[in-house]
């Protein structure tokens, strides 16, 4: 190996630092994410809205087969950007992790716990030999159980299922279910951050500045006022539209969305896809503004 190729080597192996302390393969992986169609997440007071643009390259392509937002547990979903094949592996890892947590601890995994576990898994691929980093980033959106009912009104030991042989959590149908929505971004380097609103993929910078204006009125010190689910969905789709300039306008074929928040009283499901009808309606309302 001659001198010049040895000097180049730090940009080949991702486990090798460059002289100025950078991991080029990880940065290239971030570049791959930037080329992917964008996914957006917005935290509202009623739950988290995830929305994403789908690249439907041909009218012959079945739009439903382009998957950007994936349910990973009944209270969690993952939106992706970047290499779709890599992203699918992360989704699979997330789903298994959710079930593993239930098996091990008998309770659903928390949003931040899943995000940090995914980040650990992603980071491992940047430090071990024979692997390459994931060319995908994910938004983890979900709801954690909110603060329980007033302790004085909590069920007496007799009501509790301490004597149950099974460990099925009872639904709190009697009391109003409160939730704590949370949104995390995990990047190919394996770092994760919590956000009130953010994006990954193509046009992230524009989308993020749009969200900063919408959610904070440009004032970064302001608290997000209480935001309804519907308003959050509208903001998320509007944010995606900011990057649609050179593309066809958004339609239910090219956009997909999911809301994480309390579902019907009778069900423990908290991860609900937004239907085409509603997407159509919200997009039309945005169009007419």
């Amino acid at each position, binding site marked *: 190996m001659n001198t010049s190729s040895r000097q180049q080597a730090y940009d080949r192996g991702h486990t090798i630092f460059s002289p100025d302390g950078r991991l080029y393969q990880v940065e290239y992986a971030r570049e791959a994410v930037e080329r992917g169609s964008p996914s957006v997440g917005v935290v509202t007071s009623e739950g988290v809205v995830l929305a994403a643009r789908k690249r439907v390259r041909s009218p012959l392509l079945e739009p439903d087969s382009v998957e950007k937002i994936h*349910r990973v547990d*009944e209270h969690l979903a993952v939106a992706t950007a970047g290499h779709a094949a890599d992203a699918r592996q992360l989704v699979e890892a997330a789903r298994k992790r959710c079930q*593993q947590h*239930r098996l091990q601890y008998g309770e659903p995994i928390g949003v931040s716990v899943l995000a940090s576990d995914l980040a650990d898994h992603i980071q491992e691929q940047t430090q071990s030999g024979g692997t390459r980093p994931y060319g995908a980033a994910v938004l983890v959106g979900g709801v954690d159980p909110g603060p329980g009912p007033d302790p004085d009104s909590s069920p007496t030991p007799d009501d509790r299922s301490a*004597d149950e*042989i*099974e*460990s099925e959590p009872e639904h709190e149908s009697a009391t109003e279910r409160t939730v704590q929505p949370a949104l995390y971004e995990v990047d190919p380097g394996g770092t994760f951050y919590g956000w009130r609103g953010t994006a990954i993929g193509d046009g992230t910078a524009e989308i993020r500045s749009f969200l900063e204006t919408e959610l904070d009125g440009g004032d970064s010190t302001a608290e997000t006022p209480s935001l309804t689910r519907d308003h959050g969905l509208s903001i998320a789709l509007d944010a995606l539209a900011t990057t649609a300039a050179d593309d066809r306008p958004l339609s239910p074929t090219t956009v997909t969305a999911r809301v994480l928040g309390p579902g019907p009283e009778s069900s423990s499901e908290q991860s609900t896809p937004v239907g085409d009808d509603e997407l159509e309606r919200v997009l039309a309302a945005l169009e007419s503004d």
Partner: protein
Amino acid sequence: MHGTDSDGIITTGTTTVGLVGADGVVLAADSRASLGGRFVTNRTARKVVPVDDRTALTFAGSVGDAQSFVRRLRAELALYDMDHEPGASVDTAATVAADLIRRDPSPQLELVLGGVAPEPTVYQIDPAGGVMDAPIAASGSGMQLAYGYLEDAYDPEQSVAELRAVAAMAVRNATERDTASGDGMTIATITADELEREQYDGIERAVSAATTQPADSEVAR
């Protein structure tokens, strides 16, 4: 009958039944947990548990094996629901359940697994992982007593509203003579629209509730 009393393993001596009806499935079990059927360790055990939207199972055998098994089966079915269309069929659930049992080195579990996914179906799953579908299935130490009643009283044309009473009577009759079964009852009624589970403190209370047709269900002629 799951005679591990020498090890002090808590078992659900148990009587459980599963019945296929015209419009759904009924699963029922007593609620006694005991040490070898001679000492009652728990009187309100729930041995009928949902594992998916429209699928539930009853278990007889070691409580420890059952708890761990149910957790694993729920996790497998949750993963199936995300990788496929939601709502694994009862056949699929039975296959996965039997596979989990076969992987276990010495499982002490007798299962009756039933649901409406897509059709009303009941499976008997033995400790070796054998899977057999059957219109009526019973398991546990009170099994013969339950079968004796079911052979006479069961009619596949009956609705779940009527079968609730048949299932409750089968469990009741078994608890009369089987010392490892008793105390109370759990009854699950599964139709295409819902999976409903009721828990009763006393055997007679369960029988009278089950023989009184619920107001909202169709009263068969």
